[in-house]
């Protein structure tokens, strides 16, 4: 039994609306036919416990952002940074896997000795409210050691308690949120459901590492069309390209945009491409996600949210690949 806060589900929007002066409200809401994270004017627009089509990463690592602009003038070159303007945001509704993904991204962009000012500029002033999720299609978060009720990564986490939400703060920003709104202190047990899993095991990671030259990668290479759908909906894919864009003759800007190892030109350098076709590229994505992981925190780069499985036009399923790796070579399963 731990000391928690409780609020009726119907009163949650009112509570969130209180904070609208101080924070910009962000959360899942419909955008066209798909569910996406984005800014909302009123908390009632928010939809909780829903799986968005793509992740919240573009709130911190947008698909395109200008890093700096430059001008040639008489004195020579003049550079000026275009850092994002810092505004306080309250992101409500991240499930456990997206919370874990945020930690991964914090490591990638924050760690390794060179902090990324653009990412950290946007990440610093965002307070994250996690919400327990209703497991659905293609999830396999349990394989990575957490379930739908795991609060790690949130400033404040809400557990589902029938008609109420149970909340616990994990940072002062989270605690401060509880000072407003009609929360009542209660003693309750923190739910800890275990999530779907059983595809990616330590054994499958080891087997994948050994089977770098397995011909079955070529079978996958035939099916992967080389688009970026899986990477761009994935909460932890962080690869980007840097490009220059001149403006007329006097100046220009350097910007970055999302990129993916699935694209043909990702590693093409002056006539030599170590990954000449899709076999090497789909293998890199699977290996980087499940096997190599993030050298800064030696944890897997996958959080089992299943978005890539849903998005792949060719029906390539990373869970099946992991499970397939532990099967013996001779028995080939459908689709692999």
């Amino acid at each position, binding site marked *: 039994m731990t000391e928690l806060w409780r609020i009726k589900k119907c009163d949650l929007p009112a509570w969130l609306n209180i904070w609208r002066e101080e924070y910009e409200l962000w959360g899942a809401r419909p955008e066209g036919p798909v569910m996406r994270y984005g800014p909302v004017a009123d908390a009632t627009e928010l939809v909780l416990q829903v799986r968005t089509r793509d992740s919240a990463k573009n709130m911190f690592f947008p698909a395109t952002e200008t890093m700096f602009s430059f*001008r040639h003038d008489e004195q020579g070159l003049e550079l000026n940074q275009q850092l994002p303007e810092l505004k306080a945001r309250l992101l409500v509704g991240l499930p456990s896997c997206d919370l874990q993904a945020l930690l991964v991204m914090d490591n990638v962009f924050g760690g390794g000795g060179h902090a990324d000012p653009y990412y950290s500029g946007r990440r610093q002033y965002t307070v994250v409210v996690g919400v327990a999720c209703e497991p659905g299609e293609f999830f396999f978060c349990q394989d990575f050691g957490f379930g739908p009720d795991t609060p790690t990564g949130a400033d404040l986490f809400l557990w589902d308690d029938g008609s109420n939400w149970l909340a616990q703060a994990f940072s002062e920003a989270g605690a401060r949120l509880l000072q407003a709104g009609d929360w009542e202190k209660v003693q309750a047990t923190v739910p800890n459901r275990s999530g779907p899993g059983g595809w990616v095991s330590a054994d499958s990671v080891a087997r994948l590492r050994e089977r770098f030259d397995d011909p079955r990668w070529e079978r996958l290479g035939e099916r992967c069309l080389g688009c970026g759908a899986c990477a761009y909906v994935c909460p932890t894919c962080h690869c980007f390209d840097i490009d220059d864009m001149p*403006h*007329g003759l*006097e*100046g220009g800007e350097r910007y970055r945009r999302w990129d993916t190892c699935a694209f043909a030109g990702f590693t093409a350098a002056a006539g030599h491409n170590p990954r000449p076709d899709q076999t090497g590229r789909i293998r890199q994505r699977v290996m980087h996600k499940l096997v190599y992981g993030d050298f800064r925190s030696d944890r897997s780069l996958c959080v089992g949210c299943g978005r890539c499985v849903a998005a792949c036009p060719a029906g390539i399923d990373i869970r099946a690949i992991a499970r397939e790796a532990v099967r013996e070579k001779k028995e080939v399963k459908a689709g692999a």
Partner: protein
Amino acid sequence: MNKSKRDWEPRLVGFLCNWCSYAGADLAGTSRMQYPPNMRVIRVPCSSRVRPEFILRALQKGADGVLVAGCHPGDCHYTTGNYYTRRRFQVIKRLLTFLGVDPRRVMASWISAAEGGKYQQVVTEFVETIRELGPCDFRPTNGQIFVPAADERTDLGVVS
């Protein structure tokens, strides 16, 4: 960066085919036919050289109207060039209109080497149409486009 309509001057781009329309424009010049200075001419060997990428990039770079001009069908110096222009242009114009670009912003015209007057008339009417239409809101929305400071940016100057 949407200037208010009061101090805004329409910026037009014209892709003129070298053999007919560009020569027609030159003829308008030699005949001292006056027309507004809003048109920037880009010479192309044939009107069939113009790709939709050029038209769209021009709109993106701040053009409020794009003209593609070539020889009258049948007169093309390369005999068949403008037949393809005719087909391509109709498809791209209807497509852009469908996607929300005002049809009057993108026009094509057949101007022969002898039709200096027609070139003058086409440019003058085009400038008036676009002036009435207002600036093209095609410029990037959230991208911070860096444009040199106003005084160096050789704008069209205010034509009284």
